[in-house]
């Protein structure tokens, strides 16, 4: 695979040393420190990796092999027009896992990061609107974490009032100092 040479250049230009690679079968992933997450993505984007194809997360807390952190986020990028692939992976600690958001680089990152937050509780610093996407407002916990029991019941949320848009409009008019 040709990714290793690319990753070496990445590590050199960002001044990172001793980075590990992981084999994902079809692509090799470079494990970057969480602090260099967006810098690494930006460097790859400058090299022509214009597309964020996939961004997913995983929780390794019950995995028998030791991992550098409880959570991992993997971002798959693709260069055009040659369709070379690259994958960045960052491990995050169990306590308040956070990464910097890639929303400024790729429009695709917005929803992917919302999903990772919803499912795993990973915070993406600088995300414009980090809210739940698959679950509803008022859901407790993050369902794809390994310590979330499969059969857990959620508390009932109170019935929401339907929004009367006429009132909203009136309020907006009042706020603008109009009639």
């Amino acid at each position, binding site marked *: 695979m040709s990714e290793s040479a690319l990753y070496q250049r990445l590590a050199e230009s960002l001044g990172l040393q001793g980075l590990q690679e*992981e*084999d*994902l*079968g*079809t*692509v090799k992933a470079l494990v970057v420190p969480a602090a260099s997450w967006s810098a690494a993505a930006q460097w790859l984007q400058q090299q022509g990796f*214009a*597309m*964020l*194809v*996939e961004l*997913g*997360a*995983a*929780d390794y807390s*019950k*995995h*028998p*092999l030791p991992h550098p952190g409880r959570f991992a986020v*993997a971002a*798959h990028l*693709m260069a*055009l*027009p040659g*369709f070379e*692939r690259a*994958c960045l992976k960052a491990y995050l600690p169990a306590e308040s896992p956070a990464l910097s958001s890639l929303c400024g680089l*790729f*429009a*695709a990152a*917005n*929803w*992917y990061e919302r*999903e990772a937050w919803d*499912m795993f509780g990973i915070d993406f610093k600088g995300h414009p609107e980090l809210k*739940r*996407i*698959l*679950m*509803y407002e008022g859901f407790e916990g993050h*369902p*794809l974490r390994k310590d*979330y029991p*499969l059969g857990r019941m959620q508390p009932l949320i109170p019935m929401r009032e339907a929004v009367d*848009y006429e009132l909203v*409009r009136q309020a*907006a*008019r009042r706020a603008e100092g*109009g*009639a």
Partner: protein
Amino acid sequence: MSMHIEQKLPSYRSESKAMGLDPMVINLGPSHPAMHGTIRIKAHLEGETIVFADVEMGYLHRGFEKTAEAKTWNQVVPYTDRLNYVSPIINNVGYALAVEKLIGIQVPERGQYVRLIMSEISRITDHLTCIGASAMELGAFTAFLYFIKSREYFWQLIEEVTGARLTISYTRVGGITSDLTPDFKERFAFCAAELEKAMAEVDGLLSRNRIFLDRMDGVGVMDRERSISYGFTGPLLRAAGVPYDVRKAFPYLVYDRLQFEVPTGSKGDNLDRYHVRMEEMRQSLSMVRQALQQMPEGPVNVADPRYVLPEKKEVYGNIEALMNHFKLLMPGHGIRPPQGEVYFPVEGGNGELGFWVISDGSDRPYRVRVRPPCFPLMAGVEEMILGEQVADLIPIFGAINMIAGELDR
């Protein structure tokens, strides 16, 4: 609101603000006759122009990824049917290929050809549904009926082979449930002829139809740069002019042995998407014909008792096969891929369908993550419909071919 959205809406907001008008809020969905699947679009209108849209998804979330962690490797297959229920075989094949890559096995040549043939037939039914339904929403009910009739022939063909029409669960780790029927070639030739007839008719009805063109041409444009930034794949990315197709870029199965073209558009509007899908169906037909010609005789399943169930007549006839059967089905035994992880992309009906599978060495997946092709497409909808008329929302949404099953998982 991003910069691009601001650019797309140059003057609507300020103009109507000056006139003292407020946007009207229209809720489409989550259950709306014109929205396929459950999704909610909250559109703010000024006149008939959409000035702001909020897309809310998740109404069909069933916890596929969480459920998969509690099932054995083969028990996940029926759940993958429910991801994209218009082309379920591609999902089955994608999942099986990911797990097989993890284990390090490869199905025999004939099995690969059979999987390819069934995937392409599935892709045809996917595109037929998409084009037929979006044409119907523009009032072209005839085109819908022609295509659904053709799809019916293909579903009958699928039923002949697999025993089911919609939730097929065709693959297993290490193989498939049933080989093609002996008369498959003739049956396929009939279906293909019917499809070509229907496509010629629909082509004549739609491709130069003034009403259809007015509704599709230049509507829902997503240019090359934005499509790439949004991570679009599949027909929508190709309609924007990027010839990315997983089958060509990262060939799996035996796609590298077939001759086929990757059709592209130039503008990235609804009309390009329609033409790309029509051409892809022709390519798929040609692929199946080539594959049927090249396909060798032989087994379709891996001959490895650690992964594939023995023949039923063996199970009832001798003790080794009986033990093998139970070893594969008892809880805590069964298929045990080595520890590791794999990301495997295949070309689904709507684009790149990726499975990120992690194994901890047990008989159950540690994690199954799906990269649904619709997900980035739906993220782009908000930008795509801004500045369009509210009536154009429906054809744009139809051309995206959102499948709530894979979007919400």
